[in-house]
């Protein structure tokens, strides 16, 4: 071969389309990888495969309807998404919900966080080749989902919050079941450590892989467990407490390594904290009404309203601009996954394809959340 041809071949990049249909992108995300052998030179996420224009749809819906659309974004933390919209609307109509509602919302949020992290743990194992963990994660999640089903009638898209409270009061055996679950899961969580966290192969696959520095985390706006694993203290529950988070005692999990293993540990530790929060609240749910009566069609006064909550993936914000009508003039969601995905290139550059899979699963993406 002439040198020209050789040089041309050298200059050509080896592109691989990872997705939109790929087992480890967890949805319809397309990543354009340029490779040098197995080494990743560049990752370019392409979005738009599951865009449903939810924000635009919100502009024609009433505020009560908007709540159920947020279930369809980050479906694994649907309760927190619902809560964010409800809190924003309640801010607008200056409605103070009862303590009972606040506590119920907090317990449900933490249960959702637990279920989301359980699923993430299972999927994480599967991405790294330990398929058994997938089933174990789902097994434990099933208990929470059953509690949800009994409480609000749905397993995934719950639509449990309404402006002014929650749709139904909790059923009689709610407390009993939640306590049973906590006892059960405290036994199972150490199993997670045996199966993955302490495993040499797992550690070798995650330690020192996909490092995100604190500065990068802040500048990309990587929040949630992924941001906290880089040392970015960004827990909304601590810094801007909402619902009943001001009356419970819990730690903000912070790690400084910023690698995959730190992100993994941050989530595992968060599960312990969530259980701790639920334990504090479950026995003293105050009496009161579970739902304040609101007008049939809620109208927000003219103005701008913002509310952020901590979902299982980070900071979720709802920004409503109202012109006094029954639907918002403009509504914008700040979804955690979108910011986290932007940092992917920084994390993955220079690592191998197998590392990309580990990184993708530790930043815990839910694609419909990114692509609204």
């Amino acid at each position, binding site marked *: 071969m002439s040198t020209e041809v050789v040089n041309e071949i050298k200059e050509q990049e080896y592109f691989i389309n990872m997705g939109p249909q790929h087992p480890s992108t967890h949805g319809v995300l397309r990543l354009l990888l340029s490779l040098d052998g197995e080494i990743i030179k560049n990752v370019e996420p392409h979005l738009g495969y599951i865009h449903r224009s939810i924000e635009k749809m919100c502009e024609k819906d009433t505020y009560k309807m908007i709540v*159920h*659309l947020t279930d369809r974004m980050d479906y694994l933390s649907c309760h927190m998404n619902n809560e964010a919209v409800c809190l924003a609307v309640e801010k607008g109509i200056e409605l103070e919900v009862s303590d009972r509602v606040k506590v119920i919302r907090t317990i449900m949020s933490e249960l959702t966080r637990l279920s989301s992290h359980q699923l993430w743990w299972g999927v994480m194992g599967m991405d790294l080749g330990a398929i058994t963990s997938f089933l174990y994660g789902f097994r434990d999640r099933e208990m929470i989902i059953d509690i949800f*089903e009994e409480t609000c*009638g*749905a397993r995934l898209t719950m639509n449990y919050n309404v402006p002014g409270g929650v*749709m139904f009061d909790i059923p009689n055996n709610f407390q009993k079941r939640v306590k049973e679950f906590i006892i059960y899961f405290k036994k199972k969580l150490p199993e997670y450590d045996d199966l993955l966290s302490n495993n040499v192969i797992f550690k070798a696959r995650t330690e020192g892989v996909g490092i995100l520095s604190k500065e990068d985390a802040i500048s990309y706006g990587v929040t949630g467990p992924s941001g906290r694993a880089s040392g970015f203290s960004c827990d909304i529950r601590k810094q801007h407490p909402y619902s009943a988070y001001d009356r419970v005692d819990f730690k903000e999990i912070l790690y400084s390594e910023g690698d995959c293993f730190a992100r993994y540990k941050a989530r595992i530790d968060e599960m312990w904290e969530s259980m701790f929060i639920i334990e504090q609240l479950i026995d003293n749910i105050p009496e009161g009404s579970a739902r304040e009566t609101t007008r*049939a069609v809620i109208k927000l006064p003219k103005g701008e309203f913002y509310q952020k909550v901590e979902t299982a993936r980070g900071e979720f914000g709802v920004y409503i601009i109202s012109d006094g009508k029954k639907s918002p003039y403009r509504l914008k969601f700040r979804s955690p996954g979108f910011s986290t995905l932007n940092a992917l290139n920084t994390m993955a550059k220079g690592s191998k394809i197998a590392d990309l899979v580990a990184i993708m699963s530790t930043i815990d993406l839910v694609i419909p959340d990114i692509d609204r």
Partner: protein
Amino acid sequence: MIKSIIKYIKEVLGGLKSLLKGMRVTGYYISHPKEIITQQYPENKDTLKMFDRFRGEVILLHDENNEHRCTGCTACEVACPNGSIEIISERVLNPETGKKKKEIDKFIYHLSMCTMCNLCIESCPTDAIKMGRNFEHAVFDRSLLTSVLNRPGSKLAPGVED
């Protein structure tokens, strides 16, 4: 030199130990077949009971006289975020009073568009509709998912409008 050899051996043994720990977890489950949690779905149909609040489909309640409580006020139609409910009502002459009265002709429900959000149930002033617990909705033709909920010959239960 000796130190690094000791470290090397420790690494190998520690690694093996962690692997064995993982195998213990899976080994426990294979040796305890009682822990199996999956259920055989069509076989367990008789014992499979959904929770009371389970949201499976919208149903219009009828009592034994084939009477329902829907006045045709369309509150549910308005509350529905995606137009799954269509109320077609007509004015019928009441032979007793001689006045024309609104009555539903068809309560059309598109299951294919319904997101089970429960908003229609909440908005109904007369509690005419409810969430059903049926979850087996699979059909071979999409048009089968659209149904008329009021039964033929059914009418409004007396006393609802007062």
